[in-house]
């Protein structure tokens, strides 16, 4: 009898323990962290044997990011390894798929198990800073001088900077030079020229133009250069300029110059279309340079134009380094050192070269531009890029409440479910309702 009761109670205790511990243990990433720390770095087992400078206790920090596919995984690991070497702090890294990272962060925030250094996509920063989960970077002496202003805008929440990216990115039109020469078409500089070029280059098995408009943030991100180029703005999604921009995209699809599949394609899909020679032009990000320059494609780059010429302002991309609030001061101080290292000129240049990003500090960016002429056009564009959460719409933590109706409208118009006007009118109503509910 007694034994039975005890086992029953024991079982309950075990069960409860199992429940609570399963919630707190962060699941390891699908991608194993590559590369062990380089020589001369301390390992967690032997902290005393290594010449760690002034840091009181913490020699290990945890880090989460979404660079979970190669080559980015390896490239980011290289940067982390270099920071381990220079700071003496071991970095325990976990990478998750992009969509999954934010969910992991939410759960970890609830369990107070956030990593010490967290790399997130810049439009998500405001939302997470708004929850109070992040510490201001200035508390850790992060040097903000010489950074692009749009980057500081993106990282600033209520007057304090919570996240800065070591490298930023942007988009342009990549075109296949061979196809353009064969068809006798010049790279486009206005919307009309984009339409004409796309039409002229479309033939059996090859589309003239490719872009990405899935039902995710990627769809809004790819549309924003056209929206802003037309003079539209995120604060009014159904403005005539916004309708003009969406009409432009819709016409490209309806005329057959772009595939109807764009509503499904991610930017990676678009890139494979371009590399496979299935599209003559693509709208894509600077990070593709690292693979394109090694490929056999003879490509050129032009800025995404405004309707009547001139480069359109694009959204600023990039993953920002943040320091989640942590009660252990020593660990936070170590995290601060790591972030400072990531944002140092040296690592910034390293990451930018490996990953084909634009270094966040303008002096470093200028050097990158001289080193690679392809990069130069992106560096020029970077200063005009806008933070999606910043001016002029200043959506801050509410950006996703506008972005989601926007990508839905893009999908509705491109798939033919609604006219661009109707789709954007509905989007504006949905965005207004979402903003009012907040």
């Amino acid at each position, binding site marked *: 009898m007694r034994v039975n009761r005890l086992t029953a109670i024991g079982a309950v205790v075990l069960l409860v323990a199992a429940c609570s511990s399963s919630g707190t243990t962060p699941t390891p990433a699908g991608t194993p962290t590559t590369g062990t720390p380089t020589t001369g770095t301390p390992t967690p087992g032997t902290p005393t044997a290594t010449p760690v400078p002034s840091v009181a206790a913490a020699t290990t920090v945890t880090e989460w990011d979404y660079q979970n596919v190669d080559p980015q995984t390896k490239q980011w690991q290289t940067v982390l390894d270099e920071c381990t070497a220079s700071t003496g702090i071991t970095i325990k890294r976990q990478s998750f798929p992009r969509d999954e990272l934010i969910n992991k962060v939410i759960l970890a925030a609830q369990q107070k198990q956030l990593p010490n250094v967290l790399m997130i996509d810049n439009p998500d920063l405001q939302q997470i800073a708004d929850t109070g989960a992040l510490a201001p970077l200035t508390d850790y002496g992060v040097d903000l001088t010489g950074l692009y202003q749009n980057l500081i805008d993106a990282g600033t929440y209520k007057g304090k900077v919570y996240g800065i990216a070591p490298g930023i990115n942007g988009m342009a039109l990549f075109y296949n030079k061979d196809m353009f020469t064969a068809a006798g078409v010049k790279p486009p500089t206005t919307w009309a020229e984009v339409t004409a070029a796309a039409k002229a280059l479309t033939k059996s098995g090859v589309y003239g133009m490719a872009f990405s408009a899935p039902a995710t943030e990627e769809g809004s991100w790819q549309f924003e250069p056209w929206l802003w180029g037309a003079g539209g703005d995120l604060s009014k999604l159904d403005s005539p300029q916004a309708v003009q921009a969406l009409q432009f995209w819709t016409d490209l699809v309806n005329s057959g110059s772009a595939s109807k599949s764009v509503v499904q394609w991610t930017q990676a899909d678009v890139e494979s279309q371009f590399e496979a020679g299935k599209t003559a032009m693509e709208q894509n990000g600077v990070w593709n340079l690292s693979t394109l320059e090694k490929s056999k494609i003879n490509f050129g780059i032009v800025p995404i134009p405004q309707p009547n010429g001139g480069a359109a302002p694009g959204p600023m991309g990039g993953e920002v380094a943040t320091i989640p609030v942590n009660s252990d001061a020593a660990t936070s101080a170590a995290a601060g050192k790591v972030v400072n290292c990531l944002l140092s000129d040296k690592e910034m240049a390293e990451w930018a070269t490996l990953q084909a990003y634009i270094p966040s500090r303008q002096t470093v960016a200028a050097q990158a531009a001289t080193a690679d002429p392809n990069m130069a056009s992106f560096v020029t564009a970077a200063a005009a890029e806008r933070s999606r959460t910043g001016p002029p719409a200043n959506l801050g933590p509410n950006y*996703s409440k506008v972005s989601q109706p926007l990508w839905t*409208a893009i999908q509705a118009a*491109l*798939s033919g479910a609604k006219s661009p006007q109707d789709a954007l009118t509905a989007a504006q109503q949905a965005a207004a309702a979402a903003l009012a509910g907040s």
Partner: protein
Amino acid sequence: MTRVVETGAAAKAAAPVSHQPRRLRRWRRERIVGLLFLLPALVYVLAFYVYPIAFNFLMSLEKYTLKTFVTGEAPFIGLDNFKRLVNNPEFWPAVTNTVWFTVGSLFFQFTLGLLIALFYQHKFPLNSILRALILVPWLAPVLVSGAIWVRLFDQDTGVINFAIHSLGYQGQISWLTDPHLSLISVLIANIWIGIPFNMVILYGGLQAIPRVLYEAASIDGASAWQGFRYITWPLLRPVSTVVLLLGLVYTLKVFDVIMSITRGGPANTSQTLNTWAYSLGFTNGFDFGLGAAAGDILLVVVFAFGMLYLRYAYRENRETAS
């Protein structure tokens, strides 16, 4: 040993009224033992079913956002989430899609499953091997199947369009990107996944029908159709009901098929209540309260049909027992 003293004291207290202290003691002990045996199951149900459902329901009455996870604050807002849900222009399309998706899946899964099951009643070479192969859609991980369907449906390079082309149709069917076709495409994939389940259970039901009935009927001059109509169909009814009710619950909760093929798109045209609830919580500004409210609606429907199934199963059991 202490236990004996305890119960002894209890028995003493009960002694003046009871003439059977021994039996009472035994009854009590049996009851406690019974409860203890019940305890693991009870704890399991409470921890893994009642608690999450109750928590979800509570969430749907709260302003539960990203901030809640950090600060723990979730202000109670009553039925606000439900009002916002019903007023959302995407609500009714999601409900309609859910109904069509469910009805379409059940109808075709059952009909095709039954036809295939009837076919395998015949004896022919390789019967059992082919029957095992039919199970593949059911055994394959849904995400894998989903990824394959995406390829098959691709409008430029997909096998399905290629086959249609070779039959002479020159147009291009945008299976996944046409707002009028996206729901049908995920429906086709889901029917394909569900056929084996229906086939296996119905095949079992068919095997249980005594052969002699058909022999007797054929002696009386019944046609094959009459055999099906007056023997197979009525005798298969209990199994059919179970298959349909279980299928209904399975279909209402389908999530991975749609997520892996269209993600509810384009422009929410293949969104069901289930996928929509997810997008409200996880992709649309992290409004977990709103997502929970959408989940609640689905839960009530599934629960109602679950009860229906249990009642049916209970009645069947009693009938067979008596």
